[in-house]
């Protein structure tokens, strides 16, 4: 049976994400209503086994030392935590991770905002530009990193070749510590740009035309229109992008694995890469210490996610 409904966007959407719908229902217990609740079981079971239990197990592993193939051995309590959190190297890793996350996101969102605003009004070739700006969305972190590996490669990298062609000497992208962080951030910002552009284009188009007209009648043009009217209206989308970009930035791994392997001299080692090294990359897997890093990562990401829900939670555009 088909029933035509108004689009869900105009339906009743006034709940915060963590509240059950506040409506009265006819009681459905007993009879055929009993089947309904069971439908939640597959998802909950899978999430329980593959997400919740592993989280608890990670916490457990972090309290143990490991043997040389990674099995937990003796209980060491919080020793691993003490070691790791007081290690200046790890502090540096955390700061590097946060820096890369923020830089990459800032690049992506700012550039995408500019592109979306510029394309708001009709432009010759507008749709073509729109497609070009969406293209980076087609790249994953791994494939984007592979492309940038070819651009950044020492001596033969295309980027420096092209820069040399216009008389600019490009830096040693992957072997200079500062340039390497820039290199990673640029690669990250580039592929995140695509998604940011799509989201912000949708947000720009959702701005009610009356608001724009009213502002234009008031004499606001170009820059002022954008900064005083449009950007504030697009704030939820911008916040959303900023937060999700930061969260995924905190989990940066593929770019490091492909481009720098944590170098030069540990300058681009991120938290997840450190986890990978400890657990799988160093030749003698240390699941105990790696799990400590994993727990720290959970804390970092949870903190940012909580912020996300606070900022965006009750806010429906």
């Amino acid at each position, binding site marked *: 049976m088909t029933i035509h409904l108004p689009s869900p966007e105009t339906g009743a959407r006034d709940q915060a994400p963590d509240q059950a719908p506040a409506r009265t229902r006819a009681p459905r*217990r007993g009879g055929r209503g009993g089947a309904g609740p069971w439908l939640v079981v597959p998802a909950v079971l899978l999430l329980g086994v593959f997400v919740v239990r592993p989280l608890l197990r990670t916490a457990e592993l972090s309290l143990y030392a490991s043997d040389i193939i990674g099995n937990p051995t003796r209980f060491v309590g919080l020793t691993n935590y003490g070691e790791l959190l007081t290690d200046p190297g790890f502090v540096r890793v955390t700061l590097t991770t946060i820096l890369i996350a923020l830089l990459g996101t800032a690049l992506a969102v700012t550039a995408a905002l500019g592109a979306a605003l510029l394309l708001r009004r009709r432009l010759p070739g507008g749709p073509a530009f729109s497609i070009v700006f969406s293209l980076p969305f087609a790249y994953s972190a791994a494939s984007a990193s592979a492309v940038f590996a070819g651009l950044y490669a*020492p001596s033969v990298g295309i980027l420096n070749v092209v820069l040399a062609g216009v008389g600019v000497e490009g830096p040693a992208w992957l072997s200079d510590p500062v340039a390497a962080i820039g290199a990673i951030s640029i690669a990250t910002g580039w592929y995140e740009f695509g998604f940011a552009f799509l989201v912000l284009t949708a947000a720009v188009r959702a701005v009610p035309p009356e608001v724009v007209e009213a502002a234009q009648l008031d004499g606001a043009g170009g820059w002022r229109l954008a900064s005083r009217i449009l950007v504030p209206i697009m704030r939820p989308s911008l916040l959303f992008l900023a937060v999700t970009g930061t969260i995924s930035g905190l989990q940066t791994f593929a770019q490091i694995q492909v481009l720098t392997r944590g170098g*030069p001299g540990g300058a681009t080692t991120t938290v997840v890469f450190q986890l990978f090294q400890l657990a799988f990359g160093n030749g003698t897997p240390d699941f105990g210490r790696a799990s400590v890093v994993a727990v720290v990562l959970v804390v970092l990401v949870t903190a940012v996610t909580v912020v996300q829900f606070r900022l965006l939670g009750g806010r429906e555009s």
Partner: protein
Amino acid sequence: MRARTPLVVTAAGLLVALTACSSPSGSGSAGSSAPGPSALADAQGVTEVSVWHGLGGANGEAFQAAVDDFNSENEGTIAVTATYQGVYADLLAKYNAAIRSDSVPTVLLGGDIATGFLTDVGQSIPAADMAAANPDDLVLGDLAEQATNYYTVDGVQQAVPMNVSTPMLWVNRDVLAQAGVDESDLTTLDDVVAAARTITDETGIAGYSMQADDWYIEQLTATAGQDFCLPANGRGDEPATEITIDSGLAKENITKIADLYRSGVAVDGAPDGSAAISAFQAGKVGMIVMSSGILGALKSGEPFDYEALPFPTSGPAGESGPVIGGSGLWLSASATPAEQVAGWKFETYLTSPEAQETFSHATGYVPINTKTADSPSQKEFLQANPLAQTFADQLSGTPVVSASAGCVSGAMTAVKAENISQIVAAFTGQKTVDEALDAAAESAKAAFADYQEQLAG
């Protein structure tokens, strides 16, 4: 109540998941004795042998060719499948994973620095035992002692060296000519350092580069006549506890090279050496210190006038010399006896004079079997390819002493990664050489200690 049932089921499911599957043990030490030829002779059908290796590019192709040759010679009895698992670090990670799930390959062509770990993890039958049980196959004495020495721990040879490389000083003859540097003057490290400066001063071209890998730092230590780690390079009764690069002649050597980088005479070679090779081929650097194994890459690029000279000396003759590189063959202790004997036959084939001859021609690795030099075709080849002779001479001329045996420890991967990380920081001027070497020594001590802790369980 029925409406609560889903919750109960879910909770039960979670409970089951929580208590189920604690970590798998991963089989411990083998302790099985080595099987003899009858194990394979009695086997029915085709015995399958799996081999994991870390040889990419041209070297990987040459290895596959050897595998194919062996398979065609043993059709119907043995079938070998070789898989490239990535660079040595990735290969080792995969191997660790395989231990956990009891799916190790029959033969592992493991990187040199994994020797300590592979010995300690006890998953392999020592080569010495297999050789004793299969006297008609590989005779370990036929292999170059400088190489078997590397894979001998506690007096027992653990693995069979298969592809052995030696570090060389590669020079671009055109650049040398431009700078007025004479090849024959490049014997000691001081000579090389001076020549690098001359090259840059006279021509503006970079004078030196090398792969940003700790293997080369170990070379600077071994050629200084110094044990890379103490005590006794980890090869005695006691495991290694510290490294020595922060003192003695080794430190002087490293400082001299670091000064080349800091003064702009040397350029970065990249952790995988690709930048050094590319720059060398493009005439952008006059001399590079790289493995003999890059010959394949140089030959397949655009031709130019280059030469490989022996690694620069610095320590007392007779007590110092370069450490070998490459990888060795480890035979799984958990494979079936038939597979083990089949794998041993494969190892015998790979290290035979004929196979080594073919392999070395294509790659630049040095033939590991001392009898290779006897064949007329090899003699011809060496005459036509003096570089190959240079490689072989350097290997055979290395004194079999503690310094040139290289350091063995399960912590080597971690130690080397941290070392090169610090030293590159010194090269780029982020730290002073003293700071970098002290930091490296500190964290090496910690790495060795952590490893012993893990080993004890």
